[in-house]
Protein backbone atom coordinates (compact mmCIF):
# COMPACT_ATOMS: atom_id res chain seq x y z
CA UNK A 1 0.00 0.00 0.00
CA UNK A 2 1.22 3.43 -0.86
CA UNK A 3 1.71 5.77 2.04
CA UNK A 4 2.44 8.84 -0.07
CA UNK A 5 1.10 9.52 -3.53
CA UNK A 6 1.62 12.60 -5.66
CA UNK A 7 -0.14 12.90 -8.98
CA UNK A 8 0.21 15.78 -11.40
CA UNK A 9 1.41 18.04 -8.60
CA UNK A 10 2.22 21.59 -9.61
CA UNK A 11 3.00 24.43 -7.29
CA UNK A 12 3.67 28.11 -7.95
CA UNK A 13 4.75 30.95 -5.73
CA UNK A 14 3.08 33.81 -7.57
CA UNK A 15 4.41 33.67 -11.10
CA UNK A 16 7.28 31.31 -10.21
CA UNK A 17 6.41 27.68 -10.88
CA UNK A 18 8.49 25.62 -8.46
CA UNK A 19 7.05 22.13 -8.99
CA UNK A 20 6.10 21.27 -12.56
CA UNK A 21 4.14 18.06 -12.49
CA UNK A 22 5.35 15.60 -9.87
CA UNK A 23 4.22 12.03 -10.29
CA UNK A 24 5.33 9.45 -7.75
CA UNK A 25 4.21 7.06 -5.05
CA UNK A 26 6.05 5.84 -2.00
CA UNK A 27 5.10 2.52 -0.42
CA UNK A 28 4.86 2.09 3.32
CA UNK A 29 8.22 1.49 5.01
CA UNK A 30 10.29 2.82 2.12
CA UNK A 31 13.29 5.04 2.75
CA UNK A 32 13.57 7.66 0.03
CA UNK A 33 16.65 9.82 -0.42
CA UNK A 34 15.61 13.07 -2.08
CA UNK A 35 18.54 14.82 -3.73
CA UNK A 36 19.01 17.73 -6.11
CA UNK A 37 20.53 21.16 -6.41
CA UNK A 38 19.47 23.98 -4.12
CA UNK A 39 16.25 25.55 -5.38
CA UNK A 40 15.11 22.43 -7.24
CA UNK A 41 11.99 22.17 -5.05
CA UNK A 42 12.90 19.50 -2.46
CA UNK A 43 11.72 21.43 0.60
CA UNK A 44 8.58 22.48 -1.23
CA UNK A 45 7.79 18.84 -1.96
CA UNK A 46 8.16 17.91 1.74
CA UNK A 47 5.83 20.76 2.72
CA UNK A 48 3.19 19.44 0.36
CA UNK A 49 3.29 16.04 2.03
CA UNK A 50 2.44 17.41 5.48
CA UNK A 51 -0.02 19.99 4.21
CA UNK A 52 2.02 23.07 5.10
CA UNK A 53 1.47 23.93 1.42
CA UNK A 54 -1.36 22.91 -0.89
CA UNK A 55 -0.63 22.18 -4.57
CA UNK A 56 -1.78 24.69 -7.18
CA UNK A 57 -3.02 21.70 -9.17
CA UNK A 58 -2.83 17.94 -8.81
CA UNK A 59 -3.30 15.77 -5.75
CA UNK A 60 -1.28 14.74 -2.71
CA UNK A 61 -2.48 11.68 -0.83
CA UNK A 62 -1.21 10.27 2.45
CA UNK A 63 -2.46 6.84 3.52
CA UNK A 64 -4.95 7.06 0.69
CA UNK A 65 -6.42 10.29 2.04
CA UNK A 66 -6.30 13.59 0.17
CA UNK A 67 -4.07 16.09 1.99
CA UNK A 68 -5.68 19.40 2.91
CA UNK A 69 -8.70 19.08 0.64
CA UNK A 70 -11.98 17.23 0.59
CA UNK A 71 -14.42 16.38 -2.18
CA UNK A 72 -17.88 17.89 -1.86
CA UNK A 73 -20.57 18.11 -4.56
CA UNK A 74 -18.11 16.98 -7.19
CA UNK A 75 -15.58 19.67 -6.34
CA UNK A 76 -12.52 19.89 -4.13
CA UNK A 77 -12.72 22.27 -1.19
CA UNK A 78 -9.94 23.20 1.21
CA UNK A 79 -10.20 21.59 4.62
CA UNK A 80 -10.58 23.71 7.72
CA UNK A 81 -7.33 24.46 9.53
CA UNK A 82 -8.36 22.11 12.33
CA UNK A 83 -8.88 19.26 9.86
CA UNK A 84 -5.50 19.86 8.23
CA UNK A 85 -3.82 19.88 11.65
CA UNK A 86 -5.45 16.59 12.53
CA UNK A 87 -4.04 15.04 9.33
CA UNK A 88 -0.62 16.51 9.99
CA UNK A 89 -0.23 14.83 13.37
CA UNK A 90 0.77 11.53 11.77
CA UNK A 91 3.61 13.15 9.81
CA UNK A 92 6.80 14.05 11.65
CA UNK A 93 9.15 16.71 10.34
CA UNK A 94 12.79 17.44 11.14
CA UNK A 95 14.42 20.71 10.08
CA UNK A 96 17.93 21.72 9.08
CA UNK A 97 18.30 24.04 12.09
CA UNK A 98 16.53 21.72 14.57
CA UNK A 99 14.00 24.40 15.60
CA UNK A 100 13.77 23.28 19.19
CA UNK A 101 11.91 25.77 21.36
CA UNK A 102 14.73 27.54 23.24
CA UNK A 103 12.65 28.56 26.26
CA UNK A 104 11.59 25.00 27.06
CA UNK A 105 13.54 22.07 28.46
CA UNK A 106 14.13 19.03 26.28
CA UNK A 107 11.30 17.21 28.04
CA UNK A 108 8.93 20.16 27.59
CA UNK A 109 9.81 20.32 23.90
CA UNK A 110 8.81 16.67 23.55
CA UNK A 111 5.66 16.76 25.66
CA UNK A 112 4.09 20.01 24.42
CA UNK A 113 2.31 18.79 21.27
CA UNK A 114 0.97 15.42 22.53
CA UNK A 115 -0.41 17.07 25.67
CA UNK A 116 -2.00 19.97 23.74
CA UNK A 117 -3.53 17.48 21.30
CA UNK A 118 -4.83 15.50 24.29
CA UNK A 119 -3.30 12.36 22.83
CA UNK A 120 -1.65 11.60 26.16
CA UNK A 121 -1.91 12.84 29.70
CA UNK A 122 1.12 14.39 31.36
CA UNK A 123 2.56 11.23 32.87
CA UNK A 124 2.05 9.18 29.72
CA UNK A 125 3.74 11.90 27.68
CA UNK A 126 6.64 12.06 30.12
CA UNK A 127 7.11 8.29 30.01
CA UNK A 128 7.08 8.26 26.24
CA UNK A 129 9.51 11.20 26.19
CA UNK A 130 11.93 9.30 28.43
CA UNK A 131 11.67 6.20 26.24
CA UNK A 132 12.39 8.21 23.09
CA UNK A 133 15.23 10.13 24.73
CA UNK A 134 16.91 6.90 25.72
CA UNK A 135 16.44 5.71 22.16
CA UNK A 136 18.43 8.72 20.91
CA UNK A 137 20.90 8.26 23.79
CA UNK A 138 20.00 11.47 25.60
CA UNK A 139 18.29 10.21 28.76
CA UNK A 140 20.44 12.47 30.91
CA UNK A 141 19.44 15.64 29.02
CA UNK A 142 15.70 15.76 29.70
CA UNK A 143 16.03 18.80 31.96
CA UNK A 144 18.56 20.66 29.80
CA UNK A 145 17.67 23.60 27.62
CA UNK A 146 18.43 23.37 23.88
CA UNK A 147 21.10 26.09 24.21
CA UNK A 148 23.06 23.80 26.51
CA UNK A 149 23.28 21.01 23.92
CA UNK A 150 25.55 20.47 20.94
CA UNK A 151 24.05 20.63 17.45
CA UNK A 152 24.05 16.85 17.12
CA UNK A 153 22.28 16.48 20.44
CA UNK A 154 19.72 19.12 19.48
CA UNK A 155 18.93 17.35 16.23
CA UNK A 156 18.48 14.04 18.06
CA UNK A 157 16.07 15.78 20.44
CA UNK A 158 14.23 17.20 17.41
CA UNK A 159 13.88 13.70 15.98
CA UNK A 160 12.55 12.41 19.30
CA UNK A 161 10.10 15.34 19.42
CA UNK A 162 8.79 14.47 15.96
CA UNK A 163 8.34 10.85 17.05
CA UNK A 164 6.24 11.78 20.09
CA UNK A 165 3.01 11.90 18.04
CA UNK A 166 3.67 8.38 16.70
CA UNK A 167 3.88 9.43 13.06
CA UNK A 168 3.56 6.98 10.20
CA UNK A 169 5.89 9.07 8.02
CA UNK A 170 8.99 11.06 8.87
CA UNK A 171 10.21 13.93 6.70
CA UNK A 172 13.80 15.14 7.05
CA UNK A 173 14.87 18.41 5.45
CA UNK A 174 18.69 18.42 5.34
CA UNK A 175 18.95 17.16 8.94
CA UNK A 176 22.75 17.18 9.01
CA UNK A 177 23.57 20.20 6.83
CA UNK A 178 23.96 22.57 9.78
CA UNK A 179 26.15 20.24 11.84
CA UNK A 180 29.89 20.18 12.36
CA UNK A 181 31.29 17.16 10.49
CA UNK A 182 32.12 15.26 13.68
CA UNK A 183 28.47 15.50 14.85
CA UNK A 184 26.86 14.18 11.65
CA UNK A 185 27.45 10.53 12.51
CA UNK A 186 25.40 10.46 15.71
CA UNK A 187 22.35 11.89 13.91
CA UNK A 188 22.68 9.47 10.99
CA UNK A 189 22.90 6.59 13.49
CA UNK A 190 19.53 7.55 14.94
CA UNK A 191 18.03 7.83 11.46
CA UNK A 192 19.47 4.46 10.47
CA UNK A 193 17.82 2.82 13.49
CA UNK A 194 14.54 4.48 12.62
CA UNK A 195 14.80 3.11 9.09
CA UNK A 196 15.49 -0.38 10.43
CA UNK A 197 12.32 -0.16 12.53
CA UNK A 198 10.29 0.17 9.33
CA UNK A 199 9.44 3.87 9.42
CA UNK A 200 8.49 5.45 6.09
CA UNK A 201 11.04 8.21 5.52
CA UNK A 202 11.68 10.93 2.98
CA UNK A 203 15.15 12.35 3.56
CA UNK A 204 16.42 15.45 1.78
CA UNK A 205 20.17 15.25 2.21
CA UNK A 206 23.59 15.80 0.70
CA UNK A 207 25.01 12.78 2.59
CA UNK A 208 25.26 10.50 -0.42
CA UNK A 209 27.04 7.74 1.51
CA UNK A 210 24.10 7.63 3.92
CA UNK A 211 21.69 7.49 0.98
CA UNK A 212 23.68 4.69 -0.62
CA UNK A 213 23.72 2.68 2.59
CA UNK A 214 20.24 3.29 4.03
CA UNK A 215 17.86 4.41 1.29
CA UNK A 216 15.76 1.96 -0.71
CA UNK A 217 15.33 4.50 -3.43
CA UNK A 218 16.73 7.80 -4.64
CA UNK A 219 14.79 10.59 -6.29
CA UNK A 220 16.83 13.26 -8.06
CA UNK A 221 14.97 16.51 -8.58
CA UNK A 222 15.91 19.10 -11.14
CA UNK A 223 14.12 22.44 -11.60
CA UNK A 224 10.80 21.22 -10.24
CA UNK A 225 10.61 17.82 -11.91
CA UNK A 226 11.76 14.33 -10.96
CA UNK A 227 14.69 13.74 -13.30
CA UNK A 228 15.82 10.36 -11.95
CA UNK A 229 14.15 7.82 -9.74
CA UNK A 230 15.50 4.38 -8.86
CA UNK A 231 17.67 2.21 -6.65
CA UNK A 232 20.57 4.12 -5.04
CA UNK A 233 23.28 2.26 -6.92
CA UNK A 234 21.57 2.91 -10.26
CA UNK A 235 20.92 6.61 -9.71
CA UNK A 236 24.15 7.39 -7.88
CA UNK A 237 26.50 5.26 -9.95
CA UNK A 238 24.87 5.31 -13.39
CA UNK A 239 22.82 8.48 -13.70
CA UNK A 240 21.11 8.80 -17.08
CA UNK A 241 20.58 12.54 -17.31
CA UNK A 242 23.34 15.06 -17.86
CA UNK A 243 21.99 17.16 -14.98
CA UNK A 244 22.27 14.30 -12.52
CA UNK A 245 25.76 13.47 -13.77
CA UNK A 246 26.84 17.06 -13.25
CA UNK A 247 25.22 17.23 -9.80
CA UNK A 248 26.78 13.98 -8.61
CA UNK A 249 30.18 14.93 -10.01
CA UNK A 250 30.08 18.04 -7.83
CA UNK A 251 28.82 16.25 -4.70
Amino acid at each position, binding site marked *: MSTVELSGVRLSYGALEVLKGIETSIPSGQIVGLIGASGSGKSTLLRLV*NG*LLLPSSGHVLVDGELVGRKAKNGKLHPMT*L*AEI*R*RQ*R*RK*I*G*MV*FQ*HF*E*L*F*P*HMTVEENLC*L*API*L*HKEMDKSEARQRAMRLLSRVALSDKSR*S*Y*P*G*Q*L*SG*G*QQQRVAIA*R*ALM*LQPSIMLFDEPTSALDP*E*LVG*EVLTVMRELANDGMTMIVVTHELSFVREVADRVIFMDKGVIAEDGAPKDVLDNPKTERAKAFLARA
Partner: protein
Amino acid sequence: MSATHIEDLAIKPIRDLPDEHARKPWLGQAVGWLALALFTVWFLRLFLANPKLKPELIWKYLFNERILEGLWSTLLLAFYSMIGALIFGTVIGFCRISANPVLRATGWLYVWVFRSTPLVVQVLLWGNLALLMPVLGIGPFTVKTNDVMTPFLAGVIALMLHEASYVAEIVRSGVQSVPRPQREAADALALSWWETQRYIIMPQALKVMIPPLGGVFVLLLKSTSLVIVISGGDLLTEAQNIASLNLYTIELLLVATVWFLIITSIAYAGQHYLEWRFNRQNHAHAGGVNEHG
Protein backbone atom coordinates in the same frame (compact mmCIF):
# COMPACT_ATOMS: atom_id res chain seq x y z
CA MET B 1 59.17 36.64 9.20
CA SER B 2 60.66 33.14 9.22
CA ALA B 3 59.48 30.28 11.41
CA THR B 4 62.58 30.36 13.63
CA HIS B 5 61.87 33.95 14.46
CA ILE B 6 58.38 33.17 15.66
CA GLU B 7 59.69 30.37 17.87
CA ASP B 8 62.28 32.71 19.34
CA LEU B 9 59.58 35.13 20.29
CA ALA B 10 57.33 32.43 21.71
CA ILE B 11 59.89 31.00 24.12
CA LYS B 12 61.38 34.33 25.13
CA PRO B 13 60.92 34.56 28.91
CA ILE B 14 58.92 37.49 30.19
CA ARG B 15 60.45 37.49 33.68
CA ASP B 16 61.80 41.03 33.21
CA LEU B 17 58.27 42.33 33.58
CA PRO B 18 56.96 43.46 36.99
CA ASP B 19 54.17 41.32 38.54
CA GLU B 20 52.16 44.07 40.13
CA HIS B 21 49.69 46.15 38.21
CA ALA B 22 49.62 49.84 39.07
CA ARG B 23 46.43 51.11 40.69
CA LYS B 24 44.20 53.36 38.64
CA PRO B 25 44.94 56.99 39.50
CA TRP B 26 42.28 57.92 42.09
CA LEU B 27 43.01 61.63 42.25
CA GLY B 28 41.19 62.47 39.01
CA GLN B 29 38.13 60.50 40.15
CA ALA B 30 38.06 62.24 43.50
CA VAL B 31 38.28 65.69 41.94
CA GLY B 32 35.41 64.78 39.63
CA TRP B 33 33.16 63.65 42.48
CA LEU B 34 34.02 66.73 44.51
CA ALA B 35 33.16 69.03 41.61
CA LEU B 36 29.82 67.29 41.15
CA ALA B 37 29.03 67.59 44.86
CA LEU B 38 29.94 71.28 44.96
CA PHE B 39 27.85 72.02 41.89
CA THR B 40 24.85 70.20 43.35
CA VAL B 41 25.08 72.07 46.65
CA TRP B 42 25.43 75.40 44.82
CA PHE B 43 22.44 74.61 42.63
CA LEU B 44 20.23 73.56 45.56
CA ARG B 45 21.24 76.69 47.51
CA LEU B 46 20.14 78.76 44.55
CA PHE B 47 16.64 77.50 45.28
CA LEU B 48 16.62 76.95 49.01
CA ALA B 49 18.48 80.08 50.00
CA ASN B 50 16.23 82.18 47.82
CA PRO B 51 14.23 84.42 50.19
CA LYS B 52 11.19 84.17 47.88
CA LEU B 53 11.01 80.39 48.38
CA LYS B 54 9.65 78.75 51.51
CA PRO B 55 11.26 75.30 51.62
CA GLU B 56 9.37 74.30 54.78
CA LEU B 57 6.15 74.55 52.75
CA ILE B 58 7.39 71.80 50.43
CA TRP B 59 7.75 69.49 53.38
CA LYS B 60 4.39 70.59 54.82
CA TYR B 61 2.45 69.97 51.60
CA LEU B 62 4.23 66.77 50.67
CA PHE B 63 1.80 64.80 52.84
CA ASN B 64 -1.17 67.11 52.47
CA GLU B 65 -4.40 65.15 52.15
CA ARG B 66 -5.34 66.56 48.77
CA ILE B 67 -1.83 66.03 47.41
CA LEU B 68 -1.97 62.40 48.51
CA GLU B 69 -5.37 62.03 46.87
CA GLY B 70 -3.91 63.50 43.70
CA LEU B 71 -0.97 61.13 43.93
CA TRP B 72 -3.33 58.20 44.27
CA SER B 73 -5.30 59.39 41.21
CA THR B 74 -2.08 59.65 39.25
CA LEU B 75 -1.13 56.09 40.16
CA LEU B 76 -4.61 54.82 39.27
CA LEU B 77 -4.57 56.72 35.98
CA ALA B 78 -1.25 55.15 35.08
CA PHE B 79 -2.30 51.69 36.26
CA TYR B 80 -5.68 51.53 34.48
CA SER B 81 -4.39 53.03 31.25
CA MET B 82 -1.38 50.70 31.26
CA ILE B 83 -3.59 47.62 31.67
CA GLY B 84 -5.88 48.88 28.91
CA ALA B 85 -2.94 49.76 26.68
CA LEU B 86 -1.38 46.30 27.15
CA ILE B 87 -4.59 44.53 26.10
CA PHE B 88 -5.59 46.90 23.32
CA GLY B 89 -2.02 47.43 22.10
CA THR B 90 -1.48 43.67 21.82
CA VAL B 91 -4.57 43.37 19.62
CA ILE B 92 -3.42 46.27 17.41
CA GLY B 93 0.11 44.85 17.28
CA PHE B 94 -1.20 41.52 16.01
CA CYS B 95 -3.35 43.37 13.45
CA ARG B 96 -0.17 45.04 12.16
CA ILE B 97 1.38 41.67 11.30
CA SER B 98 -1.80 39.86 10.32
CA ALA B 99 -2.00 38.02 7.00
CA ASN B 100 -5.28 39.89 6.41
CA PRO B 101 -4.63 43.17 4.53
CA VAL B 102 -7.70 44.87 6.02
CA LEU B 103 -6.50 44.19 9.56
CA ARG B 104 -2.99 45.27 8.59
CA ALA B 105 -4.29 48.58 7.23
CA THR B 106 -6.44 49.11 10.32
CA GLY B 107 -3.48 48.54 12.62
CA TRP B 108 -1.26 50.81 10.58
CA LEU B 109 -3.89 53.59 10.52
CA TYR B 110 -4.36 53.35 14.26
CA VAL B 111 -0.67 53.58 15.07
CA TRP B 112 -0.21 56.39 12.57
CA VAL B 113 -3.05 58.53 13.97
CA PHE B 114 -2.26 58.06 17.65
CA ARG B 115 1.49 58.46 17.34
CA SER B 116 1.27 61.47 15.07
CA THR B 117 -0.89 63.67 17.30
CA PRO B 118 0.17 65.26 20.59
CA LEU B 119 -1.13 63.47 23.64
CA VAL B 120 -2.38 66.72 25.15
CA VAL B 121 -4.69 67.21 22.15
CA GLN B 122 -6.07 63.72 22.61
CA VAL B 123 -6.67 64.38 26.30
CA LEU B 124 -8.56 67.60 25.45
CA LEU B 125 -10.66 65.83 22.82
CA TRP B 126 -11.80 63.11 25.22
CA GLY B 127 -12.34 65.60 28.02
CA ASN B 128 -14.63 67.66 25.82
CA LEU B 129 -16.53 64.76 24.31
CA ALA B 130 -19.80 66.16 25.66
CA LEU B 131 -19.57 69.08 23.23
CA LEU B 132 -19.74 66.63 20.34
CA MET B 133 -22.05 64.04 21.85
CA PRO B 134 -24.15 65.39 24.69
CA VAL B 135 -25.71 61.96 25.29
CA LEU B 136 -24.25 58.49 24.93
CA GLY B 137 -26.05 55.24 24.22
CA ILE B 138 -28.56 53.66 21.89
CA GLY B 139 -32.37 53.83 21.88
CA PRO B 140 -33.82 54.09 25.36
CA PHE B 141 -30.49 53.39 27.04
CA THR B 142 -28.86 56.77 27.09
CA VAL B 143 -26.90 58.72 29.67
CA LYS B 144 -25.66 62.26 29.74
CA THR B 145 -22.08 62.22 28.57
CA ASN B 146 -20.90 64.40 31.43
CA ASP B 147 -22.33 61.93 33.96
CA VAL B 148 -20.12 59.05 32.79
CA MET B 149 -17.22 60.77 31.07
CA THR B 150 -15.61 62.19 34.18
CA PRO B 151 -12.27 63.93 33.70
CA PHE B 152 -10.66 60.87 35.29
CA LEU B 153 -12.26 58.46 32.81
CA ALA B 154 -11.46 60.75 29.88
CA GLY B 155 -7.87 60.79 31.09
CA VAL B 156 -7.70 57.00 31.32
CA ILE B 157 -9.15 56.58 27.84
CA ALA B 158 -6.89 59.17 26.23
CA LEU B 159 -3.74 57.80 27.88
CA MET B 160 -4.77 54.21 27.18
CA LEU B 161 -5.44 54.77 23.48
CA HIS B 162 -2.24 56.73 23.06
CA GLU B 163 0.00 54.28 24.91
CA ALA B 164 -1.66 51.40 23.05
CA SER B 165 -0.05 52.66 19.85
CA TYR B 166 3.38 52.36 21.49
CA VAL B 167 2.58 48.96 22.98
CA ALA B 168 1.41 47.83 19.53
CA GLU B 169 4.78 48.63 18.00
CA ILE B 170 6.59 46.86 20.84
CA VAL B 171 4.39 43.78 20.42
CA ARG B 172 4.90 43.83 16.67
CA SER B 173 8.68 44.00 16.86
CA GLY B 174 8.74 41.47 19.71
CA VAL B 175 6.73 38.93 17.73
CA GLN B 176 8.80 39.58 14.62
CA SER B 177 12.00 39.00 16.60
CA VAL B 178 11.08 35.31 16.92
CA PRO B 179 12.61 33.52 13.92
CA ARG B 180 10.09 32.37 11.31
CA PRO B 181 11.11 28.69 11.37
CA GLN B 182 9.97 28.47 15.00
CA ARG B 183 6.46 29.01 13.66
CA GLU B 184 7.01 26.34 11.03
CA ALA B 185 8.16 23.89 13.68
CA ALA B 186 4.98 24.63 15.64
CA ASP B 187 2.93 24.14 12.46
CA ALA B 188 4.65 20.82 11.79
CA LEU B 189 3.66 19.71 15.31
CA ALA B 190 0.07 20.62 14.36
CA LEU B 191 -0.27 23.37 16.97
CA SER B 192 -3.10 25.84 16.36
CA TRP B 193 -2.52 29.57 15.80
CA TRP B 194 -3.45 30.33 19.37
CA GLU B 195 -1.30 27.51 20.83
CA THR B 196 1.63 28.71 18.74
CA GLN B 197 1.29 32.27 20.02
CA ARG B 198 0.71 31.21 23.61
CA TYR B 199 3.44 28.58 23.99
CA ILE B 200 6.02 29.37 21.32
CA ILE B 201 5.94 32.99 20.14
CA MET B 202 4.87 35.02 23.18
CA PRO B 203 7.30 33.53 25.74
CA GLN B 204 10.19 34.32 23.38
CA ALA B 205 8.84 37.72 22.30
CA LEU B 206 8.28 38.81 25.90
CA LYS B 207 12.02 38.80 26.59
CA VAL B 208 12.47 41.41 23.88
CA MET B 209 9.37 43.34 24.94
CA ILE B 210 9.97 43.75 28.68
CA PRO B 211 12.56 46.57 28.61
CA PRO B 212 10.67 48.87 26.19
CA LEU B 213 7.37 48.14 27.96
CA GLY B 214 8.97 49.28 31.21
CA GLY B 215 10.03 52.44 29.41
CA VAL B 216 6.47 53.03 28.22
CA PHE B 217 5.19 52.71 31.77
CA VAL B 218 7.68 55.22 33.16
CA LEU B 219 6.76 57.69 30.39
CA LEU B 220 3.10 57.04 31.12
CA LEU B 221 3.57 57.89 34.81
CA LYS B 222 4.88 61.30 33.77
CA SER B 223 2.31 61.77 30.98
CA THR B 224 -0.53 61.48 33.51
CA SER B 225 0.26 65.10 34.44
CA LEU B 226 -1.21 66.18 31.07
CA VAL B 227 -4.74 65.54 32.36
CA ILE B 228 -4.33 68.84 34.18
CA VAL B 229 -5.75 70.43 31.01
CA ILE B 230 -9.11 68.80 31.77
CA SER B 231 -8.74 69.11 35.56
CA GLY B 232 -8.20 65.41 35.85
CA GLY B 233 -7.74 65.44 39.62
CA ASP B 234 -4.22 64.02 39.39
CA LEU B 235 -1.20 65.03 41.46
CA LEU B 236 -0.39 68.08 39.34
CA THR B 237 -4.02 69.25 39.19
CA GLU B 238 -4.26 69.09 43.00
CA ALA B 239 -0.95 70.91 43.42
CA GLN B 240 -2.11 73.64 41.07
CA ASN B 241 -5.50 73.87 42.79
CA ILE B 242 -3.84 74.45 46.14
CA ALA B 243 -1.40 76.94 44.61
CA SER B 244 -4.23 78.90 43.03
CA LEU B 245 -5.53 79.60 46.55
CA ASN B 246 -2.33 80.18 48.51
CA LEU B 247 -0.18 81.44 45.59
CA TYR B 248 2.86 79.32 46.60
CA THR B 249 3.10 78.14 43.01
CA ILE B 250 6.76 77.10 42.93
CA GLU B 251 6.60 75.30 46.29
CA LEU B 252 3.66 73.21 45.15
CA LEU B 253 5.23 72.45 41.78
CA LEU B 254 8.25 71.23 43.73
CA VAL B 255 5.98 69.05 45.86
CA ALA B 256 4.72 67.43 42.65
CA THR B 257 8.31 67.17 41.38
CA VAL B 258 9.44 65.32 44.51
CA TRP B 259 6.58 62.83 44.21
CA PHE B 260 7.26 62.25 40.52
CA LEU B 261 10.94 61.64 41.29
CA ILE B 262 9.92 59.04 43.86
CA ILE B 263 7.36 57.13 41.80
CA THR B 264 9.33 57.11 38.56
CA SER B 265 12.45 55.96 40.45
CA ILE B 266 10.46 53.05 41.86
CA ALA B 267 9.20 52.25 38.37
CA TYR B 268 12.75 52.39 36.98
CA ALA B 269 13.92 50.05 39.71
CA GLY B 270 11.11 47.65 38.83
CA GLN B 271 12.06 47.82 35.17
CA HIS B 272 15.70 47.05 35.95
CA TYR B 273 14.66 44.14 38.12
CA LEU B 274 12.53 42.64 35.32
CA GLU B 275 15.33 43.13 32.80
CA TRP B 276 17.80 41.49 35.14
CA ARG B 277 15.49 38.53 35.70
CA PHE B 278 14.86 38.02 32.00
CA ASN B 279 18.55 38.32 31.19
CA ARG B 280 19.39 35.75 33.82
CA GLN B 281 16.84 33.38 32.30
CA ASN B 282 18.35 33.92 28.87
CA HIS B 283 21.77 32.99 30.17
CA ALA B 284 20.43 29.85 31.78
CA HIS B 285 19.08 28.87 28.36
CA ALA B 286 21.89 29.90 26.08
CA GLY B 287 24.94 29.38 28.24
CA GLY B 288 26.63 26.17 29.17
CA VAL B 289 29.34 23.92 27.92
CA ASN B 290 28.71 21.40 25.19
CA GLU B 291 29.60 17.87 26.11
CA HIS B 292 29.41 15.80 22.98
CA GLY B 293 28.12 12.25 23.08
